[in-house]
């Protein structure tokens, strides 16, 4: 019996490791930017090319920065969640139109609704690189001091909003 004990133990340990490995999502790469100051930007606005939106405009409030694009299917999935969030008025959502065509982005917002306070245009994707974006949609929670507190990779869903985003926003707003 004892001669089976060692292989059996090794087998059990391997199964344990593999089981844990199966539950991990390799597409979710932890961001090194959490707890760091949000990278500065100053970009033209989607609805008014003449105006710019810069990071300093949002100082003093807790806000969400959502990278999206009209070509991105995940953004379509996430969109109702953002609309609900915007209606609740808990915190403003600022949009970053990532590597998109202006007219297509505007048509997309007309068709599905606009949850954003202001949308900035990151046509070349450079601000996206500064924020470590590697696939839209991505959403950042940024606090009053302009520090990134949370990053959501992929579409937001109701569960993530109620369990993670809302408690975090309340905590940050109370500070």
């Amino acid at each position, binding site marked *: 019996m004892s001669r089976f004990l060692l292989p059996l133990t090794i087998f059990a340990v391997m199964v344990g490791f593999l089981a844990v490995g199966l539950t991990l999502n*390799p597409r979710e*790469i932890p*961001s*090194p930017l959490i707890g760091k100051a949000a990278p500065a930007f100053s970009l033209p606005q989607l609805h008014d090319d003449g105006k710019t939106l810069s990071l300093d405009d949002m100082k003093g409030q807790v806000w969400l920065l959502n990278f999206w694009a009209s070509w991105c299917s995940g953004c379509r999935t996430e969109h109702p969640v953002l609309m609900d969030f915007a209606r609740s008025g808990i915190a403003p959502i600022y949009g970053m139109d990532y*590597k998109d065509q202006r007219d297509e982005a505007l048509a997309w917002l007309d068709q599905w609704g606009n949850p954003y306070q202001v949308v900035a245009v990151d046509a070349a994707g*450079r601000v996206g*690189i*500064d924020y470590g974006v*590697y696939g839209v949609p991505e959403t950042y929670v940024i606090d009053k001091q302009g520090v990134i507190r949370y990053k959501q990779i992929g579409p937001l869903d109701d569960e993530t909003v109620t369990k993670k985003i809302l408690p975090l926003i309340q905590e940050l707003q109370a500070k």
Partner: protein
Amino acid sequence: MNWLFCLLLLVAGSAWAGEARPLGDDPAVEARLKQLAGELRCLVCQNQTLADSNAPLAEDLRREVREMIVKDMSDREIVDFLVSRYGDFVLYRPPLKTTTVLLWAGPFVLLVGGGIALAVTLRRRQRMVENAVITDEEHRRVERLLSQGVKES
């Protein structure tokens, strides 16, 4: 008619001259880009290097790296730029840290473990051979078999 053609040529020529020279023209820059991009991972197609991937983000990052090379930044600075945004994940050679000790030392631990297991097994087997008890009858049978060759099995 001829003058119109000349004018067109002139206009077209100036438009051509006005275009910025693509950064990709400098072979020295391209060589460094190729070498650096081979060490960096594409975030979208995670098992491809930045050099291999055709993902739009990989193209953007190559553009970014190319611009940093032109600005004469060191390899260290360029890699730090990407790590500060995307984390150690962009590196195909992860740095040695407390969280990556197992990754670096793991194969050697396995090698040593395997070596010890092999040594123990061999020693145990040797002892089994040494301790084997052979009766006189078995001895005679061995002698007979050896003298006959392999015919009897």
